[in-house]
């Protein structure tokens, strides 16, 4: 597996981007020619209740686009509509209204599926098949020629690290292994657009690292990747842009650092002090103590005077770092705001 | 294919298909009738065995067999086929499965002893089968 490389953000793709907060909804104007996925006012209602008279809206008026070659992350709490959107794109469910296009073809056009790869949430495959047989099955479905099939299947198995398990029936696979064979199945036919639904779910750190690496490789190869996750650190690390969906509505779209704002909120000082506490009392009371170490937040303006005082009292400064609002805080702010307004109803579509 | 064309195509397939099925059925019926002058068969004649096989559903099986008696006699009657040899075994099985099926005894009493074409001309019934005439006497 190649080592982790920081994602390269192509700024030319965000020429008209604006920093967005949770309340305003400014759409990115990515030019049509380079959009791999375009979604326009996509809505999905689920009828329920007696005689199906009541409606649950699991997705409301989603409009966004994903540029060619971009890695786009769908973020949102459970039941927000991420899986619904992905299932709509892939043709497993049908929209109540609105349209979407992948690589210029409408989502109702099944021949478009030749250019997309899909990993379902919590994938499950025919458990009586072995890994090699499953990939061979999909290879045949995708109409790969016979000679190419064997090579491709072998290559994929190696890529996801399942080479040694190729002859084992899938019923004996662990969750992580199933996830990996799922990824293999999604990229087997070298699609231009790869759509992954919670690709890291249920994986241990090793598995997650491997999936992250695969996504980065796809990006390097120029593929467009759309994936949904609720692990924010993965999104921060991998995505060119993220879209935050809460309660069926898109709340914000933009590059991760754009969304949260670049402004630092202060500095964090980490220092060690073993002397008498009376000297540095004002600081120590504001600091969090772990043994001999103290962690304290100060504003930028007060930073140098603080450092001088600490040094003068004999404390050892260990580190000084910027404190930035993280995606997690932005996320929680949105979710809590939503929950305060409406009762939490998770829609799983079941 | 647009929604309207695919819907139209579906309706066409369903209607034409069912119409075809209807017509075919007529042809098949004619064919089967022609080949059906065969002897009807009652392979399982042992009432006791059938009763065992029916587990706790013997009365239900009796009802089914009674239906067969009626259909058998009716069909023979319509076709004016005087050969109703199977009437006695059918009735025998029916009454073994459910000895309380009075109507079977009535029917048997009426049609078994008569000579063809109305009845089976069955000697045993004419001679007064012990079980049957015994129950008829009770009635």
């Amino acid at each position, binding site marked *: 597996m190649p080592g982790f490389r920081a994602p390269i953000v192509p700024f030319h793709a965000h020429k008209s981007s604006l920093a967005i907060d949770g309340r305003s909804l400014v759409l990115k104007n990515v030019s049509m020619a380079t959009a791999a996925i375009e979604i326009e006012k996509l809505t999905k209602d689920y009828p329920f209740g007696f005689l199906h008279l009541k409606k649950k809206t699991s997705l409301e008026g989603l409009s966004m686009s994903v540029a060619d070659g971009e890695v786009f992350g769908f973020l949102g709490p459970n039941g927000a509509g991420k899986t619904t959107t992905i299932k709509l794109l892939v043709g497993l469910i049908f929209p109540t209204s609105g349209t979407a296009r992948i690589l210029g073809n409408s989502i109702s056009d099944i021949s478009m*599926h030749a250019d997309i790869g*899909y990993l379902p949430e919590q994938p499950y495959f*025919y458990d009586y098949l072995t890994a090699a047989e499953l990939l061979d099955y999909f290879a045949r479905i*995708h109409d790969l020629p016979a000679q190419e099939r064997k090579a491709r299947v072998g290559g994929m198995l190696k890529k996801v690290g399942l080479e040694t398990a190729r002859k084992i029936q899938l019923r004996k696979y662990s969750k992580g292994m199933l996830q990996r064979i799922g990824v293999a199945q999604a990229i087997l036919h070298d699609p231009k657009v790869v759509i992954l639904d919670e690709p890291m779910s249920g994986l241990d750190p090793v598995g997650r690292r491997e999936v992250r690496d695969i996504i980065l490789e796809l990006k390097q190869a120029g593929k467009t990747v759309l994936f949904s996750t609720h692990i924010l650190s993965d999104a921060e690390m991998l995505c060119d842009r993220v879209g935050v969906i809460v309660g069926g509505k898109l709340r914000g779209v933009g590059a991760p650092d754009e969304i949260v704002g670049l402004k630092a909120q202060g500095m964090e000082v980490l220092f060690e002090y073993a002397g008498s506490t009376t000297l540095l009392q004002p600081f120590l009371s504001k600091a969090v103590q772990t043994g001999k170490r103290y962690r304290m937040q100060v504003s930028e303006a007060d930073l140098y005077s603080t450092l001088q005082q600490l040094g003068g009292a004999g404390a050892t400064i260990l580190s000084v770092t910027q404190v930035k609002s993280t995606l997690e805080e932005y996320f929680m702010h949105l979710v809590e705001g939503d929950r305060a307004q409406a009762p939490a109803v998770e829609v799983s579509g079941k | 294919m647009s929604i309207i064309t695919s819907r139209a195509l579906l309706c066409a397939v*369903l209607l034409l298909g069912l119409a075809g*099925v209807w017509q*075919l059925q007529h042809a098949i019926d004619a064919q089967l009738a022609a080949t059906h002058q065969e002897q009807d068969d009652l*392979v399982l004649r042992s009432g006791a065995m059938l009763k065992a096989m029916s587990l706790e559903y013997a009365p239900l099986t009796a009802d089914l067999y009674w239906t067969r008696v009626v*259909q058998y006699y009716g069909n023979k009657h319509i076709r004016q086929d005087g050969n109703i040899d199977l009437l006695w075994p059918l009735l025998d099985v029916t009454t073994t499965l459910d000895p309380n099926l009075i109507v079977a005894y009535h029917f048997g009493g009426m049609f078994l002893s008569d000579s063809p074409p109305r009845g089976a001309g069955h000697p045993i019934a004419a001679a007064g089968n012990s079980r049957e005439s015994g129950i008829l006497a009770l009635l």
Partner: protein
Amino acid sequence: MRRAGIVALNTFREAVRDRVLYNLVFFALTMIAASILVGQVSIGIEEMVIVTLGLSAISVIGLLIAVFIGVGLVSREMDKRTLYALLATPVRRWEFLLGKFGGLVLTLTVNTAAMAVGLFLALKLVKQSGQHVEGPVLVAVYFILLKLGLVVALALLFSCFTTPLLSILYTAGLYIAGLFVTDMRNFQSDTMSRALQTLLRWLSYLLPNFQNFDVMAAAAHGRAIPGLLIAQNTAYAVLYCTVVFAAAAAIFTKRNLK
């Protein structure tokens, strides 16, 4: 179409790996026991018993497989979500259905053919008279296969929109109704209203008529079965299966997968 074939072969592979074909062992043992015992318990009708027993067993076992696997063809894949990744490929929904249907029919054909071989072997063992029952028996087996195909189509239809349990009830119900269709046509009674009579008559033609395929009596006595009937029954089965399949495809294509 080609993709339907791929799905069909995989469905067959699934049946094999689910050890469906082990029923053949049970059948073989039954036939062997029967051939050995029949000489002891009856005289003169050995062939008839073997044929009736064999054909009945083929029919019953075939029906069990057709119904119990048929009702799960689609609903199992939807429950287990194995279908999700597959439908994201260029496979069309009707191609998938056709593949599942074809795969189960293929399984049943292999199963029935194997049982027919067993039946013929048993016949060879007990053969008394010079009666040629092989021809009619072969036709009877073929008719059983046609009947099973129709049952699979019905099970597939129900599998597309309802639970396995209900599918079993509906399919079994239609099968049983289909056996009494001729009687339904002959129901004529002065106590019945015209409307009811017409309804019964229509039902008797529209419901699948499984009595068409019942030639066990003829086969048991070695009576030849007319070629025209073979052609007609084949056409009937094909036509009815097409109607049922079209309905199933229409339902499944519009279905939102949870």
